[in-house]
């Protein structure tokens, strides 16, 4: 049923070793068009390493990486980002000393030519994220929740085909979480952009993701819809531990 064009990202046997530690082992992952894919796993499961591998910040020890059908194994972060895979970082991926408007503008510099078009892109992005009233504010002075949105804004201003978010909900309150989830759905539905979401907030992941991939000790544990994952005995075991028989 699926054509090759529906696969935005594909990894084949992706492996990354740090000395004696096998951080990611033989991972097969695929991200399809128009989906929000959750990547979860207990601490140390290899989520961040996977993230760095697919965005080109780490080179794989072995295995292959295909981004939008192109073989990107060993390609630089710059090359991959220019193909349309844009990522954010766990801790503050924004420029604290710049205004919100300039932050978002950074995302448009490479892809959008012309001052007017850029300004339109910035305005559109800010409106979508609810940042329009804060465009002239210095980003470092904003409350934490808005700073998180600015990080997404910089990335989304580049209008990626695949947006990879590294724990975008950390430290947000309930209202901010649900706002961000609405934004993610709009990014998927209105712009046809797929989202890879690495997140510890299970409730949020389960409510927004189309599919969820679970990693454990650097290995693929399960893939499925949120409902399938919730009842998967291997996943429950990984998170809660073995049941000890008396």
């Amino acid at each position, binding site marked *: 049923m699926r054509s090759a064009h529906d696969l935005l990202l594909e990894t084949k046997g992706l492996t990354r070793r740090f000395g004696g530690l096998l951080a990611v082992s033989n991972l097969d992952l695929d991200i399809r068009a128009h989906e929000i894919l959750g990547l979860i796993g207990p601490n140390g499961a290899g989520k961040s390493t996977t993230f760095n591998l697919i965005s080109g910040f780490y080179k794989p020890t072995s295995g292959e990486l295909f981004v939008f059908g192109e073989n990107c194994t060993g390609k630089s972060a*710059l090359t991959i*980002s220019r193909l349309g895979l844009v990522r954010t970082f766990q801790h503050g991926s924004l420029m604290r*000393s*710049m205004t919100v408007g300039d932050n978002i503008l*950074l995302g448009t510099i490479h*892809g959008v030519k012309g001052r007017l078009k850029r300004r339109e892109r910035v305005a559109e992005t800010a409106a979508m994220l609810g940042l329009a009233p804060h465009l002239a504010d210095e980003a470092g002075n904003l409350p934490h929740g808005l700073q998180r949105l600015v*990080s997404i804004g*910089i*990335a989304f201003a580049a209008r990626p085909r695949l947006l990879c978010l590294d724990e975008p909900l950390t430290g947000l309150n309930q209202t901010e979480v649900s706002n961000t989830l609405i934004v993610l759905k709009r990014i998927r539905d209105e712009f046809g952009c797929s989202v890879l979401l690495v997140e510890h907030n299970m409730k949020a992941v389960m409510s927004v993701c189309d599919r969820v991939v679970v990693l454990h000790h650097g290995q693929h544990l399960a893939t499925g819809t949120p409902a399938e994952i919730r009842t998967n005995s291997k996943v429950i075991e990984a998170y809660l531990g073995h049941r000890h028989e008396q």
Partner: protein
Amino acid sequence: MEKSDFGKILIAIRDNENVARTVGLNILVVKIVCFAAASVAAGLAGSLHAIANNVISPGDFSFLVGSFALAYVKVGGEDTVVGPLVGSVLLVILGSYALGLGGEEHIFYGAAIVVAVLLMPQGITGLLRGKRADRSAGAH
């Protein structure tokens, strides 16, 4: 400079280089351009120095000259274009007074760097800007 795209990319590299890279900006090229521009300025200054003095010797380009330049930038403030200008004017004036202290006047520049780093990490311009921001915040 600070308003242009190039200036914004420079600030982005200072604040968060990785983010700049993830939105397709070629950080390596920008850095090479910066080093080249800085080298052009330094080369030009060196040539002018030779013209002005009619004679040049290795002593004119000693480690001390480099530390003077560092002191200008640190005292003036490195975040803005005017910072180093302010710093160099101020330190050259004060430095001429320090000449009266005798042979060890170079200590003055070292002290200036230490004081600047400890008491005003963003330099004089940063200090002034902070004051102005406080005042406008107080007016609200």
